């Protein structure tokens, strides 16, 4: 489903974020990528979503080489991915409902059907009663849950999460870990980048450890 073959990524100025990375993630697998700050976790996720392109090697997602993908094809790749960001990236001039609706608007869902899906996603993250709220009025954990609802509303086959429990209290973090567990149970492929030991310990996940851009055996 996701395969990295000798992938390197270096930036202008010579900094090498990823070095000769090769691994595969199968359908429905739950994988945690860990490593110190700056080890290349975020870069790895960005390569899968074609937010960045590899300097060399190939990144294949669902049979497509996303590093060589045409610009115009990238949106359709991303609609099949659920992206969860550490900084949530919510739109503060819209309600919770409208934030979660955005992916469905983008893929051109009929409105009535979309509204049902948005409520189902909000129900799953336990925020159904806050659909009219604005993100500013929510706590950090609630904002993260809105971000998760937005990532799953399109029913993607792959979830990519970057430090999903980053700034959260242990209680909130626990709830979010439970959510990932339930997504995993229904067969979603999940890749989580984190250095949260508690999260790693509490999930039945395969762990990939990055050190200075390379996989530690």
């Amino acid at each position, binding site marked *: 489903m996701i395969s990295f073959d000798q992938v390197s990524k270096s930036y202008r100025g010579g900094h090498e974020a990823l070095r000769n990375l090769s691994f595969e993630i199968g359908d429905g697998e739950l994988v945690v990528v860990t490593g110190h700050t700056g080890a290349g976790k975020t870069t790895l996720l960005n390569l899968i979503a074609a937010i960045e392109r590899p300097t060399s090697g190939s990144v294949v997602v669902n049979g497509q080489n996303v590093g060589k993908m045409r610009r115009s094809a990238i949106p359709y*790749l991303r609609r099949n991915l659920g*992206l969860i960001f550490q900084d949530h990236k*919510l739109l503060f001039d819209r309600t919770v409902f409208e934030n979660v609706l*955005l992916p469905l608007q*983008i893929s051109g869902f009929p409105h009535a059907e979309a509204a049902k899906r948005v409520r189902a996603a909000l129900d799953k993250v336990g925020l159904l009663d806050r659909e009219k709220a604005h993100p500013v009025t929510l706590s950090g954990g609630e904002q993260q849950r809105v971000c998760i609802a937005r990532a799953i509303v399109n029913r993607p086959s792959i979830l990519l999460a970057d430090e999903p429990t980053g700034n959260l209290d242990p209680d909130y973090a626990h709830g979010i870990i439970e959510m990932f567990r339930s997504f995993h149970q229904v067969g979603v492929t999940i890749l989580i980048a984190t250095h949260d030991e508690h999260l790693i310990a509490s999930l039945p996940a395969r762990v990939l450890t990055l050190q200075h851009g390379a996989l530690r055996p």
Partner: protein
Amino acid sequence: MISVHWHTLLLALKRFLRAPLSNLLTVLVIGVALSLPAGLYAVIDNLNRLADGTTGEPQITLFLQTSASKGDIGDLADRLRKLPGVGQTDFVGKDSALKELVKNAGIEDLAATLDHNPLPDAFIVRPRSDNPVELEALRSELEKLPKVDSAQLDSAWAKRFYALLQVGRQGVTVLAILLALALTAIIGNTIRLQILTLRDEIEVSTLIGATDAFIRRPFLYFGALQGLLGGMVAWLVVAASLLLLNSAVADLAQQYGTAFRLQVPGPGGSLGLLGGAALLGWLGAYVAVGRHLKHPGRHG
């Protein structure tokens, strides 16, 4: 598909209302800038209408002596036909000339007080040449014919007037092109500012699978909307100016014995103005968003 465009239009309206003052100011700038070429064009259009009453072809009018009889007129017509420099000739009898004059100048009352027709019979001669020297030679030759009182070379002024209008029209075209470029830049700039305030929305939308077209669409609608509103302002400015000018023009026209009035742009011209303005807005937005999509990091 229709509902997508409807929603996009609503979104564009919402964005317009989010900063109503600055958007209205932009509309005003667009309107005033557009009203310059549109106004000049309307004036030229009106002058054109005035000129259409005359002909651009030169003609020589032969006024006959009042003593000329029907026989003299027949002889003269024969001689005119045989002259090599003369094309078509038309005879205008004094009765029909008086009728025409009364109709054009609106002087029925005055005409009724006349006990005889003061106008002479006349021939209108269309020369074959339009060379000014040859025309003048023909005119003096015609003047020497028997029973001819005087010969006037008409419509040289009309020709000049036509040429002048042509220059004016080309000037307006150049001005319109320059202002169109300026408008594209003005609208492009407002869109660029809007992109800055909506940067997060664009970034998030892109990350969750929005196509360029999806991101571009509301901006295009917004640009077209601004252009359209600017076009309406321009139309109002032009119409109001023409109507204001009209009383002065009416006074002037009366002194020349015509009932000429300036007219506001007709449906064709108005639609052209509005459509053109909307198109320019669309274009400006397209350029601005295109730049942003290509270089999302750059905002200079």
